[in-house]
């Protein structure tokens, strides 16, 4: 923590002057369960993309819905909501 700002140098009242800076904070670190996808079952319906509360699902170059593990907190909503059972959760240690 020695490289972090002191109480004198830290921004007044925790103000943040740089817009969109939360991108730098990778909340994927919080995850204990990881969503995985079975491509054969995915019909590209996009329900996982709609339900994801963290906007951590994106469309890959082949049009499939993929998980952005930098920001996915592993809540499991996508796995629960997927109407085709294409998403399942695995423990991060696996």
């Amino acid at each position, binding site marked *: 923590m020695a490289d972090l700002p002191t*109480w004198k140098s830290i921004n*007044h*009242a925790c*103000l943040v*002057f740089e*817009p969109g800076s939360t991108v730098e904070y990778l909340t994927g670190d919080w995850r204990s369960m990881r969503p995985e996808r079975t491509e054969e079952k995915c019909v590209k319906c996009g329900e996982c993309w709609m339900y994801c509360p963290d906007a951590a699902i994106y469309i890959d170059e082949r049009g499939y819905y993929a998980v952005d593990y930098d920001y996915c907190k592993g809540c499991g909503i996508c796995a629960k909501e997927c109407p085709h059972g294409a998403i399942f959760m695995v423990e991060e240690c696996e």
Partner: protein
Amino acid sequence: MAKRVGIEVSIAVSDAVTLCDVDVVAAYPITPQTHIVEHLSESVANGDLNAEYIKVESEHSAMSCCIGASAAGARTFTSTASQGLALMSEMLYIASGMRLPIVMALATRTLSAPLSIWGDQSDVMSVRDAGWIVIFAENGQEAFDMTVQCFKIAEDERVLLPVMLCLDGFNLSHVIEPIEIMDQEEVSSFLPPYNAKYRLDPHEVLTMGAFAMPDYFSEIKKQQDEALKDSYTVIREVWDDWGKHFGRTYTPLQTYLTDDADIILLIAGAFAGTARIAVDRLRAKGVKAGLASLKLWRPFPRDDIIRELGGAKVLTLIDRALSPGGGGGPIASEVRACLYHQDNRPDIVSYVAGLSGRDVMSEQFEEMIEESLEYSQKGDIPPYEMYGVRE
């Protein structure tokens, strides 16, 4: 030119707020504060005050609106009491943590239950650690003057903290007193328009009230604590400046006949005026009594207390609030703690008195001082006493 008029203290506070040309008032009425915001609402409605008056559904919303308005750079005022303060307490911590210079008048009133609308200082003491500057007015003139001063203190770039001005509910809020009301020119010359250093502005983006991880939180809190402690200097400057402008100077601890006093009574708020009569009577009887009226509660004026009270033989400390199951009253606990490291510290007698509008007459203050001397002479001092309670 200032005009001396007979006026209800709540109305005088409201007039002071109008003279300060606030931009936003967000408030919810509650006894005994209602007259302040009622009159402000009239001032806005009849065009005397060009402000946004936001009628909200609760005190929680009132403080939330003030936070938003202040964050946008507006000079912001609200007022409440008792249960209203309790309901807004969550937002009080946010206002101070975000360093927003909101000014609030608190017509101090007891907290239920039992249900009571009457005055004491249990509401303000319940938010002692909310990080606000807390000032006590003793009379109507002080309530008027301090309202103007509060904006100047809060908005100083070295401070940027919210300020709570306490005026005893009913004992001050509802009495009519002769008060010198400054004119617009005088107030404007003392209080310049507010130009926020940091504000929410779509052209110059910044984030306020952001989230802090454990590795940042302590540093932010330390910064806030230092700012609150350092506000002492600015408060003194503003009070001295007021004295130069208008001839009335305020100090954190206003003392009366304390220089040679053996025993000093300390109290915050309107009851100090009554206690002063008791001191005069005791002096006439040959008792070397003195009085200290506490004007500044946060930041706690530790050095003033040590300097002004530390030399007495006995202190009689009066709280209009009880810390149930604790050491009596909050003021007594803090004064006692701050004198602990002094050599020859005074004997301290703590009374909880004047709860929920129960009057304390000058004879009763006399009795407390005389009883304190007896306790001290016997060397047997109770931890605290609820004065006048029926046994």
